[in-house]
C-alpha cells in the first residue's frame, strides 16, 4: 500500500514538474507567472534528490552507514567533530551561498528567463549537486583532505599544482570582479555609500562587544548589529537629502575603487576578531534572513515576469555582456548551477563534521539544491522588471550612451520600450539620482527585490528603503568575501613562499603579512581598476573571466571525481561525472577560445586590443593601458586553459591505463573502521 502511495505521489510530482517545465519552456507571448518557475524548480529538485542522488549513493558511492567518518575517528573538538546533520547542512549552505548565485543569473537574464532557468535546474541536478556530493564523500573517505591534496594523490603532481594555481587565480579574479560590482552599485550613491560605510564601525563595535562586554554571544551581537544596519539604511535617506552630507558620501568609481583597495588591505592585516569575524557574522545573519524573506516574498506575491522567454540577444549582441547563448550563458551562471569553488568547501570544513557517510547525500546534494533555488529567485527578481528598465540599468554607457534620452531611445529601438521619464521616476522612487549604466547585476537585482518586497510589505513608499536594504545586503556580502578571500589567498601565498624562505611562511610575521597582503590586494586591485576604467563597464570582460576560471576549477574537481570512480571499479557508472565534465570542457574551452580569438572586439580580447591599436595616432596613455589589459586577460585565459588541459591529459592517461589493466588503481582511502555511533544510539 505504501509503495503504491509512493508511486502515486512521485508520479504526481513528475507530472506536475513536466507541466511546469513545459510551460516555462514553450510559453511565448504573454508574460508568465513566476510561480511556474517555482513549481518547476521544486519538482526538479525533489525528483533529482529522491531518485538521482539515491542512485549515485547506492550504485556508485555505496554509502556505508557503518563506516566511521573522520569526525568520529579523529575527533579533536576543533576541526574534527561529530555534528548533527541539519547543523552541518546549515553550516555548509552558509559557506557555499555567496553573491554568485544572485549576480550571475541577473546578468544572464539578458538572454531571457528561459536559458538561465533551464541551465540552473539541469546544471544543479545533473552537475553541481553531483560534484558537491561526490567530492564531499571522497573527502570524508580520505580524512577530510582538500581538493588540491586529492588531485595530487589521485591524478598526480600536475593535478595538485593546477588546482592550487586555479584556486589562487579564481580568488584574484573573483575579488576584482566582486569589488567592481560594489563600485558600480555605490558610485554617485550617497545613500548606499553611507550605509556601507556605517557597517564598518558597526562591525568594529560588534568586535569590541564580543571581546569585552558579552564574550562569545555571537547571535546576540549579530542581531544587534543588524538593527544598527537597519538604522543606517534609515538614516541614509537623510544623508542623501542633505546637500552637505550627500557631497561627503558621493564618490566617483575610481575613488571608490581606491577606498575598497585600502579597505581590503586593512581588513587583511587587522586582527580577525576586530573586523573580519564580526563582519562575517553580520553578513551571514543578513544573508540567511534575506534569502528566507525573498523566498517568502516570491511565493506570497508570485509576481509576473515581464522579460520574454528569449530575447534577441541570444545571437551574441547583448549589451550586458557580449557572446552567444552557448557558451556564455553557462559560464555567466556558475554558482547556481555548478561552481568549482564549492568543491573547496566540500573538501574543507564540512567533511570533518559529517557523523555518517549516509549524511553526505543530504548535505552535499541537498545544500547545492538550496543554492540553486537562490539562483532561481535571482532570475525572478531580474525578470519582474520591465525589460527596458533591466537593460537601462545593466547596459554600459559605452553601448547606450551617457545621455538619458539617447540611452532610452537606443534601448527602445531594440524592442524594449523605456523612456527617460520612466527611469527618472524609478530612480526617484528608490532614492537615487540615476539608475543608468549601473552594470554588475547588483543594482538590477536590488530593484527587482525592492519591487517584490515593496509589493508585499510596505507598498511603494518603502521602495527606496527596500532598494537600499538590497544594496546593503549585496555589498555587505561582497565586502565580506573581499576581506575573507584576500586573507585566504594571502595564507596560500605565504604557505608557498614559506618553502622558499621560512619566515615568509609565518602568518604572524608582520613583514610577510604586509608584503603578501599588498601582493594579493595589488593583484585583484589591478583587475578592479581595469574594470573601472573600461568604457564597456568592466563586467563584459571580467565576469566571463571569472566564470571561465570557476568552471575550470569544476573541471579539475570532476576529473578527480571521475578518476576515483574508475579506481573504485565503478567505470560503467562514470558517466555520472564524465558527462558534466565533458559539458564543462565544451563550455569553458569554447568560451576561452572565443574570449581570446573571436574577431568581434566586444567578445575577443585580442580583437579588442587590435581595434584599439588601429585607432588614432599618437595613442593616449589610457588606450595603451586598455590594449595591455586586453592582452593580459587573453594571457590569463590561455594559461588557465593550458593548465586544465594538462590535468585532463593526465587524468585521461590514468583512466586509460586503469581500464586497460596496465596501471594499478590503488584507492587512497582511509582504512575501514566500524563506527561506534550506531551502538551508542542503540
Amino acid at each position, binding site marked *: 500500500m505504501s509503495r503504491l502511495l509512493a508511486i502515486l505521489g512521485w508520479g504526481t510530482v513528475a507530472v506536475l514538474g513536466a507541466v511546469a517545465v513545459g510551460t516555462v519552456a514553450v510559453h511565448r507571448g504573454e508574460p508568465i507567472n513566476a510561480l511556474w518557475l517555482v513549481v518547476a524548480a521544486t519538482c526538479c529538485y525533489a525528483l533529482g534528490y529522491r531518485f538521482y542522488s539515491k542512485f549515485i549513493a547506492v550504485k556508485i558511492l555505496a554509502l556505508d552507514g557503518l563506516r566511521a567518518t573522520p569526525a568520529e575517528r579523529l575527533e579533536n573538538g576543533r576541526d574534527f567533530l561529530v555534528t548533527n546533520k541539519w547543523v552541518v547542512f*546549515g553550516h555548509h549552505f552558509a*559557506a557555499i551561498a*555567496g553573491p554568485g548565485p544572485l549576480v550571475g543569473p541577473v546578468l544572464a537574464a539578458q538572454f531571457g528567463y528561459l536559458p538561465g532557468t533551464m541551465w540552473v535546474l539541469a546544471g544543479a541536478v545533473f552537475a553541481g549537486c553531483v560534484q558537491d556530493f561526490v567530492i564531499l564523500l571522497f573527502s570524508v573517505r580520505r580524512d577530510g583532505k582538500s581538493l588540491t591534496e586529492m588531485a595530487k594523490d589521485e591524478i598526480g603532481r600536475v593535478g595538485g599544482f593546477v588546482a592550487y594555481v586555479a584556486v589562487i587565480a579564481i580568488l584574484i579574479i573573483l575579488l576584482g570582479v566582486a569589488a567592481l560590482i560594489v563600485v558600480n552599485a555605490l558610485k554617485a550613491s550617497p545613500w548606499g555609500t553611507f550605509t556601507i560605510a556605517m557597517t564598518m564601525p558597526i562591525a568594529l563595535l560588534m568586535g569590541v562587544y564580543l571581546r569585552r562586554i558579552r*564574550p*562569545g554571544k555571537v547571535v546576540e551581537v549579530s542581531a544587534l548589529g543588524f538593527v544598527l544596519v537597519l538604522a543606517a539604511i534609515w538614516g541614509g535617506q537623510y544623508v542623501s537629502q542633505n546637500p552637505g552630507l550627500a557631497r561627503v558620501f558621493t564618490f566617483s568609481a575610481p575613488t571608490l575603487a581606491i577606498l575598497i583597495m585600502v579597505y581590503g588591505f586593512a581588513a587583511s592585516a587587522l586582527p580577525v*576578531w576586530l573586523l573580519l569575524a564580526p563582519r562575517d557574522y553580520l553578513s551571514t545573519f543578513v544573508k540567511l534572513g534575506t534569502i528566507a524573506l525573498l523566498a517568502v516574498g516570491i511565493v506570497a506575491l508570485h509576481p509576473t515576469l515581464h522579460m520574454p522567454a528569449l530575447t534577441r540577444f541570444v545571437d551574441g549582441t547583448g549589451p550586458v555582456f557580449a557572446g552567444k547563448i552557448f557558451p556564455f550563458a553557462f559560464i555567466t551562471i556558475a554558482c547556481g548551477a555548478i*561552481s568549482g*569553488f564549492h568543491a573547496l568547501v566540500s573538501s*574543507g570544513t564540512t567533511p570533518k563534521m559529517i557523523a555518517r557517510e549516509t549524511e553526505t547525500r543530504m548535505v552535499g546534494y541537498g545544500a547545492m539544491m538550496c543554492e540553486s533555488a537562490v539562483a532561481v529567485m535571482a532570475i525572478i527578481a531580474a525578470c519582474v522588471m520591465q525589460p527596458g528598465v533591466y537593460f537601462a540599468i545593466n547596459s554600459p554607457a559605452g553601448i547606450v550612451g551617457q545621455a538619458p534620452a539617447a540611452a532610452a531611445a537606443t534601448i527602445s529601438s531594440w524592442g524594449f520600450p523605456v523612456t527617460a521619464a520612466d527611469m527618472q521616476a524609478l530612480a526617484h522612487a528608490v532614492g537615487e539620482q540615476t539608475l543608468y549604466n549601473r552594470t554588475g547585476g547588483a543594482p538590477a537585482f536590488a530593484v527587482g527585490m525592492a519591487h517584490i518586497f515593496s509589493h508585499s510589505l510596505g507598498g511603494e513608499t518603502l521602495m527606496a528603503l527596500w532598494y537600499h536594504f538590497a544594496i546593503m545586503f549585496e555589498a555587505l556580502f561582497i565586502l565580506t568575501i573581499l576581506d575573507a*578571500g584576500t586573507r585566504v589567498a594571502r595564507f596560500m601565498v605565504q604557505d608557498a613562499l614559506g618553502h622558499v624562505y621560512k619566515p615568509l611562511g609565518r602568518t604572524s610575521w608582520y613583514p610577510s603579512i604586509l608584503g603578501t597582503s599588498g601582493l594579493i590586494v595589488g593583484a585583484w586591485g589591478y583587475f578592479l581598476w581595469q574594470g573601472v576604467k573600461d568604457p564597456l563597464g568592466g563586467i563584459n570582460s571580467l565576469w566571463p573571466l571569472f566564470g571561465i576560471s570557476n568552471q575550470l576549477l569544476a573541471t579539475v574537481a570532476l576529473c578527480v571525481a571521475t578518476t576515483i570512480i574508475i579506481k573504485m571499479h565503478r567505470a560503467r557508472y562514470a558517466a555520472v561525472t564524465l558527462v558534466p565534465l565533458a559539458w564543462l570542457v565544451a563550455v569553458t574551452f569554447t568560451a576561452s577560445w572565443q574570449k581570446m580569438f573571436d574577431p568581434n572586439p566586444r567578445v575577443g580580447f585580442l580583437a579588442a586590443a587590435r581595434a584599439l591599436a588601429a585607432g588614432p595616432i599618437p595613442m593616449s596613455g589610457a588606450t595603451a593601458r586598455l590594449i595591455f589589459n586586453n592582452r593580459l586577460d587573453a594571457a590569463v585565459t590561455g594559461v588557465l586553459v593550458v593548465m586544465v588541459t594538462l590535468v585532463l591529459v593526465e587524468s585521461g592517461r590514468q583512466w586509460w591505463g586503469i581500464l586497460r589493466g596496465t596501471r594499478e588503481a590503488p584507492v587512497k582511502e582511509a582504512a575501514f573502521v566500524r563506527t561506534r555511533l550506531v551502538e551508542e544510539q542503540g
Partner: protein
Amino acid sequence: MKRIVSSWHTFVAALREIFDEAAYARFLDRAGMASSSEAYAAFRREFDEVKVRRPKCC
C-alpha cells in the same frame, strides 16, 4: 509538539554552529575555563587561524 521542539533545538544548534558559539562552548569545555574576556581572546587566538583559512564560496 515534541517534533516542533526538537526542530527548534536543531535550528538553534545550527545557528550556534554557524556563528561559532558552539565552537566557543567546546573551547571552554576543553580548556576548563569559564566565559570571560580573557577566555574569548584565547579562543579567538586558537580559532581564527583555522577560521580564516576556511574557504567560503562566491
